[in-house]
């Protein structure tokens, strides 16, 4: 029996992460390490970014949970969602804090770091949203400028 080779979604995912690994690999090969810069600077960024995006996405999803609870007649759904989000958030924060002296990235106080994290994540999300819009714009432009796949003469004769 001949098995058909169907494309997998994994191919697309590899395409999405390939540039990240490539840029790091090429840069490290060409230029080596960066002076006075290493995991001590990278780890806090990952931790802060993960915690801030967790909070922002949780707030967004919590809003949706109210709609879910209303539509499925589950009024307690947002409360349970909130409790689980808080527990996961605390566990994640404990995990990241236990990795070493981190979370304050050159900011003088926790409050300054909090504001910086929020602004930083908002700017990152704006960059991601803009790049997603540009990608969709190019895709849509390429599609509308390709030769039509539907036989218009048949459609026109049907309309007549």
């Amino acid at each position, binding site marked *: 029996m001949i098995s058909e080779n169907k494309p997998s979604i994994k191919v697309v995912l590899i395409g999405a992460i390939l540039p990240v690994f490539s840029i790091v690999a090429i840069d490290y090969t060409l230029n080596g390490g960066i002076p006075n810069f290493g995991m001590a600077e990278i780890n806090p960024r990952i931790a802060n970014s993960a915690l801030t995006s967790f909070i922002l996405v949780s707030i967004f999803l919590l809003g949706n949970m109210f709609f879910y609870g209303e539509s499925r007649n589950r009024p307690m759904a947002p409360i349970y969602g909130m409790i689980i989000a808080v527990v996961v958030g605390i566990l994640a924060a404990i995990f990241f804090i236990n990795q070493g002296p981190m979370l304050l990235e050159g900011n003088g106080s926790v409050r300054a770091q909090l504001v*910086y994290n929020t602004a930083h994540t908002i700017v990152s999300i704006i960059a991601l949203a803009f790049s997603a819009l540009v990608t969709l714009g190019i895709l849509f432009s390429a599609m509308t400028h390709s030769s039509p796949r539907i036989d218009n003469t048949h459609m026109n004769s049907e309309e007549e």
Partner: protein
Amino acid sequence: MDEIFEAALLFWLPFAFIPLGFWISQLKSSKLFNNFGYSLIIVGLIFVLSSPWTVPESPSSAVGQLLGFIAGPTILVLHGLYKIAYSGNVPVGKLTKRDKNLGFVSLFVGITWLNLMHWWGITPSMDNSVNRYWLVFLPNLLLSLTCFCLAIGIGLLAFGDSRARESRYLFAMASASFIFLLCAMNLDSINLTAIEFREYVWLSVADLLGIFIGAVLAIMSFASVIFVYEKNLPKPVSIEPPTSDELAVVSRVIKNNLGDENS
């Protein structure tokens, strides 16, 4: 007034108006709510964009300055893509060839403007140093643009029906932004050295990884609640099979709609 209170009142509160206004504007029930939502967005944007003047001491005003700087090229790029897309084969609302040319000009000017903001002397700067959020925005934009374009291009090739020609545009954009990144990591610009930019690219990789981890954790937390609820829902009550009369009606409707033109 206290500096923190000023920043909260003149920057963060108006900033919160933007998503709130967008949310209210989407409520379909009332035209009044729609107008109120759009007004909130406009007021929020005005306050955020004027933050470098209203709260110059606050570090948060750097976000307002960045948004002001990128507004021009961003609008030009998106406007250009819109004009190009809707001047192609669209069933309704097709734009003219003049609009298409205007779209190409707009896209070109927007991309060139963004490029010059890194390479030339128009980089967003505050207090004689480059705006720290510009150094977050640009690497994130270039890296995510490369990832999205490559992923969608590969997706078109893998799942699309003879879409190789269309995927070329996406691969071209992915290559262009990747080459921009490589050049910026190896060549100094007027305001920024290559080493500094390399640091921010590495931090951008960490940033994207963190955002991915945080978003997945949040989605899993809330999805687990929905999963448990949906799993405990009672089985839907089975209904009786259709009667012969009902089947006859269905057959008639199908025949009327799918019948051969010659019959």
